[in-house]
């Protein structure tokens, strides 16, 4: 499961939804794997405002990955200045863009747990698939 997916998930328990502590879920005991995919620069530029950067930083630190800067990169930070163009296809990604792509879309939790900071519930990740089913769902 990709780290970017965590930007869109919270604890599945209803009473946790109102609590800021239910986001992001905290990876624990994770086994990571890198699954390479092609970089999509227009996507990276546009996703920036949708990222909760503090959450991305927290997750990255908790996984023992290199510390991220306090503020999110800007669109300009992602494109080699010499290549800036009207046509997206002409633009060349910077190292910042490549690192962001690696972190959000290529770094995957293969096995481990996702823990809610509000109720401490642990969701299992097995073979890359996170399980959010709760006993209470199935009645």
């Amino acid at each position, binding site marked *: 499961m990709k780290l970017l997916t965590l930007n*869109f998930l919270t604890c599945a328990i209803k009473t946790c939804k109102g609590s800021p502590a239910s986001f992001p879920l905290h990876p624990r005991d994770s086994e990571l794997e890198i699954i390479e995919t092609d970089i999509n620069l227009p996507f990276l530029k546009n*996703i920036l405002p949708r990222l909760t950067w503090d959450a991305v930083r927290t997750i990255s630190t908790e996984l023992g990955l290199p510390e991220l800067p306090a503020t999110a990169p800007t669109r300009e930070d992602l494109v080699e200045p010499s290549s800036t163009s009207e046509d997206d296809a002409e633009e060349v990604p910077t190292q910042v863009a490549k690192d962001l792509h690696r972190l959000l879309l290529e770094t995957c939790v293969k096995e481990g747990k996702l823990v809610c900071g509000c109720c401490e519930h642990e969701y299992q990740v097995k073979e890359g698939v996170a399980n*959010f089913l709760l006993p209470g769902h199935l009645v």
Partner: protein
Amino acid sequence: MLPTPSTSHVSFDRVYEPAEDSFLLLDTISSSTEVAFLKDRFSNATTHPPLVLEVGVGSGVVLAFVAGNADNIFGRHDVLTLGTDINRFACQAASQTVQTAIASSAQPSVFLDVVNGDLASSIRHQSVDVFIFNPPYVPAELPDFSRHDSYNALPAGKKATTFEQDSYLLELSYAGGEDGMVVTNRMLAQIPEILSPNGIAYVLLCAQNKPEDVKKNIRSWGPGWLAETVGSSGKKAGWEKLQIVRIWRQTSG
């Protein structure tokens, strides 16, 4: 006609096989009126990438169709796709279907994951721009969920599922309880929470679901909520066997 994703790797003994309902969703989402509607809302390439969530992905054929044809449908290819299913085998199958569709697309979009869960219960509020659901809609008794945990994985030490397990998993894909609406009603209740302010939802209904009542009910959610039939199939004497309802909020201004 946009290409239909390949699902040849999927085991239809325990994952719903694409059928008339699945294809009605594909046809509706890629119809000229829906494409115009979606482009109008989402094609501005400088806005954030739209997030498409499908609940109950099954084989993944619908989500893969959107992911593989994002450029045609949205007028942009930085579209995000995310899925959920209660059936873990479907989650794995659908991931592969979506990845295969993206790999063969000239303008690759961005696939997130398929998570194993109940409806959209694990999705952050107000994050979904396009929501898609082809529910278990047949009026038939709901399966007995008490064995879900054991049926949702390969039996310990075994390489194959059992016959009872497969029957249970397939029951999950069609049995919708009273009026075939029990699961759909639970999902409809989550829609206002998960949709972004600009978000829209496509939900499939069959004639036994009493679609006119369902739409009336949605319109009473509050000011601005709209629900219209935007695709149908199996017309018989004025009855549509299946239909797709689009649910959205009139944006003020």
